[in-house]
């Protein structure tokens, strides 16, 4: 190796090192944030999950006892089942509804911006304020929904008092908060190439077939994205149910715990009963479930069609 190439190599390495250091300097808040607010707490909560810890006394190692107790905890089982109900029933209803709304809005109707505003607005209203409004709409005696049902000749419904109706009520209310997803779908629909739709039309496809064979495949990455984000979100379902059911003494979950969700029970275990070890075990099971769900979604994502970049 001549001296000149050697010097050039050194120079190159020095430049690479410098750009590495510059890059790391810029992302240093992210590195600290990742370590302090993600990596370390994940490991630490795994440790707590094997302990009995009430914050005041130091944690006592108890092995798998928290996990064993959870297996026998009937209320925990209810919270888990209620959460799965929202994931498997609430979420598909919401996404299908949002997609249909987006399809309607994408037919180039006049006044699109007005409709878009109306459908989007509820999703940015403060959740607590909006949910308190729903508490009033759902009110069994004076709530307008029951008044309306009676006026139509139906029976009153115990929206928030009859355990058979409470979760459907939450799903019904959730439709009102769906504007964000509607807009994501609407933006996706506008990216579907017109040429493909025209080609399908020339081949004699009707609106339904065009939607099924062109729009849906082209939209599949967007749909996949919303599924992933919402599955993770629904496993953490908290505020709406908490606001609707929490009482003054701190209990929450509604009649027969029919609106007790995973994150609510975890919150109660940790911040009302100060059973930090027990709550950490719940957190880790939740983490495992979410990881598993995401892995399954990615594994079965063969239906997602990725356009090659033009």
């Amino acid at each position, binding site marked *: 190796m001549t001296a000149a190439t050697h010097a050039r190599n050194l120079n190159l390495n020095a430049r*690479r090192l410098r*750009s590495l250091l*510059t*890059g*790391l300097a*810029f*992302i240093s*808040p*992210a590195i*600290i*944030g*990742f370590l302090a607010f993600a990596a370390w*707490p994940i490991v630490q*909560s795994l440790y707590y999950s094997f302990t009995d810890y009430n*914050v005041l006394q130091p944690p006592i190692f108890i092995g798998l006892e928290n996990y064993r107790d959870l297996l026998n905890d009937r209320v925990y089982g209810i919270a888990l089942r209620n959460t799965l109900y929202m994931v498997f029933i609430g979420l598909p209803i919401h996404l299908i509804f949002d997609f249909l*709304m987006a399809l*309607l*809005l*994408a*037919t180039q*109707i006049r006044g699109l911006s007005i*409709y878009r505003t*109306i459908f*989007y*607005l509820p999703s*940015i*209203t*403060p*959740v*607590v*304020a*909006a949910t*308190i409004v*729903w508490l*009033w709409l759902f009110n069994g005696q*004076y709530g*307008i929904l029951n008044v309306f049902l009676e006026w139509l000749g139906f029976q009153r419904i115990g929206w928030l008092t009859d355990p058979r109706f409470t979760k459907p009520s939450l799903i019904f209310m959730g439709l009102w908060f769906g504007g964000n997803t509607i*807009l994501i779908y609407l*933006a*996706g*629909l*506008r*990216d*579907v190439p017109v040429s493909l*739709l*025209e080609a399908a039309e*020339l081949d004699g496809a009707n609106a339904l077939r065009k939607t099924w064979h062109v729009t849906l495949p082209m939209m599949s*990455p967007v749909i996949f*994205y*919303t599924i992933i984000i919402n599955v993770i979100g629904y496993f953490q379902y*908290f*505020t709406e149910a*908490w*606001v609707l059911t929490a*009482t003054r003494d701190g209990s929450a979950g509604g009649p027969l715990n029919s609106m007790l969700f995973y994150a609510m029970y*975890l919150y109660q275990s940790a*911040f009302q009963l100060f059973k930090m070890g027990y709550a*950490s075990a719940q*957190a880790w099971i939740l983490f495992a479930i*979410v990881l598993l769900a995401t892995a399954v979604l990615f594994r079965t994502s063969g239906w997602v069609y990725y356009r090659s970049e033009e």
Partner: protein
Amino acid sequence: MRASKPLMPPAFSLQSLGLQSRRRQNALMKGFAYVVCTLMAVAYVFPLYWMITTALKTDVEVFLVPPSLFPKDPQWGNFIASTQYIPFWLYMYNTLVICALTILGTVISCSLIAYGFARVKWPGRNLVFLIYLSTIMLPAQVTMIPLYIVFRQLGWVGTIWPLVVPAFFGNALYVFLLRQFMMTIPNELSDAARIDGAGELGIFWRIIAPLIKPALATVALFTFVATYRDFLGPLIYLTEQNQWTISLGLKMFQNMYGAQWQLMMAAATLTMIPTVILFFLTQRTFIEGIALTGIKG
């Protein structure tokens, strides 16, 4: 940013082909879309209408059966009464302080981080970015307890710091959004500045920062809405009544004096006003921002 492309092909191309039935079908579809969208729009607006009209009723009229669709004698005083019944202005002030600090921290940290991922070439950056991005999927519950315990040891429970300080260490979703935006800026701009002897911070501040203003506005807006709506964070950390945010305060007061519906609805209306005004002022930023997060995901 993005040109809006019509979904349906323009009518003339069909006409020229003589596909009369297709056109009728399209017109039918459109009519159907109008009817359904309008009905749905009425349903979507109704809860807000009911909130405002309830807010204007007297405590007797609220419980009228059947209810009056419009308040007989609008009680505008209810809005003032609700701000005394709940220490509304104090809670609004608390909320806005948290929002302002959170926005400041998020905008500064995320733009610097995004610059490091988008504009500086270093070995391994794509892998690191992918790992960082995966934190979006981390449920808050997993980190909640250890963080609470640390903040408690720092003496921060009962202060706003646990809600604000993490914002200064980046947010993967917004970093992603800003990075996408920065990558569209041609490298020649930075290279020219480098030749002129500018340092990376100088390039960031003088060249990139001004160009990404629209994306920064989106991040600021989304951060505001998310912070303003947050409930679980304040519920855990704001243990003193005089520190409560408006969302926390609303829930606590609803628990204490649940039956004063006209005052609760007045307070709910007032709470919604800032986000609604902000939305109308910045509609484009909102809508483009959503397209950006949703599509490129």
